[in-house]
């Protein structure tokens, strides 16, 4: 078993890992920048080492500083949390070279999954459904019609050399395709000096669905079901749920099998998340894999009863999955997470500063993961997440009602937070219906504007 873990992160996830270690009798070493001297992860770790000035690049992202700290403290493992160095394959390699266990998948797998096209090809080979499209460049208008027939309308034509929307056209039927193909090709040629196009299936109202996986170092893989993460603003998730109302038990079981096979093929281990887009018909398509613990891992913990961070630590200690999670967990009830960010709830501008009042809600079915406290400072240097409020109810209705109650009891003063935004979302009919997609926030913010 791992004896001493250095947590190469800050904020709530650092405290989350420290708490898991403490409960397992593993010693903890916090690292911190000068801006985080008074942070709770520093206070609650067994040891703490200052590794640099406030800027992440000079501290939390400074590989030599983190490794030196681990060596000085005699840590035998490093937990990278999420963000920062968590998907940095080089860091994982340096850990390996320094004889420090990196708590995550092997660097080769991280690197492979970090390159989108390689990841896509790997998953395709492993029979994971990927977004249908042309295999590379389309040779002609006729070929385009041919591809569109197999991919099925609507499709989107994209410039191979492209970006920024130029050389891009959405085609809804075979009648309009030839014209749009010519337009897109000409536009691409003019813009990038290359008229080559490729095709993908176009999803008008996609949902973001992701599957949580655990895999040990002995080739055993388990899927812990999905999360619904469609409530996003500019690709930043705001609210996550488990399970998704759209995934049937049968689909969950089937995906579990596909995932099991594919990750075994790849040689994946430790925790990970496979992200999918779901189209209007409920079909899902692989987009990418995150090779780390995620912010929203808690909703899976609430409905499965599995402690994912403890599982990570035990996997990294060489344990077998069958000893950690003896049988496929049942999904019990419904869990929702709100990300409480230090941001203006309407303008979304960051709001660092000193928290003067901080009253955290509690009670039945309410979980708060936070490293903030009254009189604490939210530094300007890092991401704005100050707390995760997670509610678990017997169904989605109860979880939502619990969230509304808990949000009303979550009092933060001194800085702006997204609490009022969440309160409005939870009062929104479309959100409550569960029938939404990744465009929800655009529509919601329009509605809010109209109310004024």
């Amino acid at each position, binding site marked *: 078993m791992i004896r001493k873990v250095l947590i190469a992160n800050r904020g709530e996830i650092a405290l989350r890992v420290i708490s898991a270690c403490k409960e397992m009798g593993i010693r903890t070493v916090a690292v911190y920048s000068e801006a985080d*001297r008074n942070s709770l992860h520093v206070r609650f*770790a067994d040891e703490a*080492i*200052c590794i640099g000035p406030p800027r992440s690049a000079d501290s939390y992202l400074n590989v030599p500083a983190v490794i*030196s700290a681990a060596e000085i403290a005699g840590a035998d493992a490093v937990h990278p949390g999420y963000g920062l160095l968590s998907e940095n394959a080089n860091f994982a390699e340096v850990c390996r070279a320094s004889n420090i266990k990196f708590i995550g998948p092997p660097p080769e797998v991280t690197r492979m999954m970090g390159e989108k096209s390689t990841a896509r090809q790997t998953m395709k080979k492993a029979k994971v459904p990927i977004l249908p499209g042309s295999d590379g460049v389309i040779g002609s208008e006729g070929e385009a019609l041919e591809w569109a027939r197999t991919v099925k309308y609507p499709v989107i034509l994209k410039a191979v050399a492209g970006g920024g929307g130029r050389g891009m056209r959405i085609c809804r039927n075979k009648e309009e395709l030839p014209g749009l193909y010519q337009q897109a090709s000409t536009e691409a040629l003019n813009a990038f000096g290359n008229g080559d196009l490729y095709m993908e299936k176009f999803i008008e109202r996609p949902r973001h669905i992701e599957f949580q996986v655990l895999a040990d170092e002995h080739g055993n893989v388990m899927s812990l079901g999905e999360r619904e993460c469609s409530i996003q603003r500019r690709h930043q998730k705001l609210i996550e749920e488990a399970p998704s109302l759209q995934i049937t038990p049968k689909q969950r079981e089937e995906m579990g099998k596909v995932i099991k096979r594919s990750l075994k093929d790849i040689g994946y281990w430790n925790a990970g998340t496979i992200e999918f887009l779901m189209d209007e018909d409920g079909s899902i398509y692989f987009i990418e894999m995150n090779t780390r613990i995620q912010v929203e891992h808690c909703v899976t913990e609430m409905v499965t009863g599995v402690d994912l961070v403890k599982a990570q630590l035990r996997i990294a200690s060489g344990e077998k999955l069958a000893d950690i999670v003896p049988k496929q967990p049942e999904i019990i009830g419904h869990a929702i997470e709100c990300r409480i960010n230090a941001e203006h709830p309407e303008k979304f501008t960051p709001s660092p500063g000193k928290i003067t009042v901080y009253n955290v809600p509690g009670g039945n079915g309410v979980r708060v993961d936070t490293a903030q406290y009254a009189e604490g400072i939210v530094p300007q240097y890092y991401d704005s997440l100050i707390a995760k409020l997670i509610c678990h109810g017997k169904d989605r209705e109860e979880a939502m009602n619990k969230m509304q109650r808990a949000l009303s009891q979550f009092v933060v003063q001194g800085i702006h937070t997204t609490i009022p935004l969440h309160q409005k979302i939870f009062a929104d009919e479309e959100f409550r219906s569960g029938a939404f997609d990744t465009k929800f926030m655009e529509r919601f913010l329009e509605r809010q504007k109209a109310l004024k």
Partner: protein
Amino acid sequence: MDGNDLKELRELVEFLKSSGIAEFEMERPDLKVGLRFAGETPAAAPAGVDMTQLAALLAAQRPSAPAAAAPAAVAAPAVASTSAPAPVAEVDPHAGAHIVKSPIVGTFYDAPSPDAEAFVKVGDHVETGKVLCIVEAMKLMNEIDSDATGEIVQVLVKPGQPVEYGQPLFAIKAR
């Protein structure tokens, strides 16, 4: 203004009064206070000012100094804490000395090799740029240069000791 501020202000004023102070001014990055008592001297307090208590009062609300994993108060107000003496109250024996701090995390060595003589010792005069020590990080020997000119008055760490970022290594007194 929150209740906490008010409480501290109140304590400050009471303390000033009991100390027989007629006028008081204080400036901090985050706070500036000035006040004058009515009358000549509110009370005769010949005992003088208890600097420790004043320091503690002023330190409240300020991000408390180091305390790595130490059981310092979660929130700043050290006033309520029974145990935590405010770090400001500590007497610095090298007041006014320049402190050379470690620019990286690593292991401190005072000499280029185990048998070699130390780069510098107490009493030595050093110029800016003079190598003072080595901090080893990831098998790399990083020479640390002096960023001041003066006399080494104290070496604050021992050879082989791990140092964190910003940790004081040497005290240098300009002459």
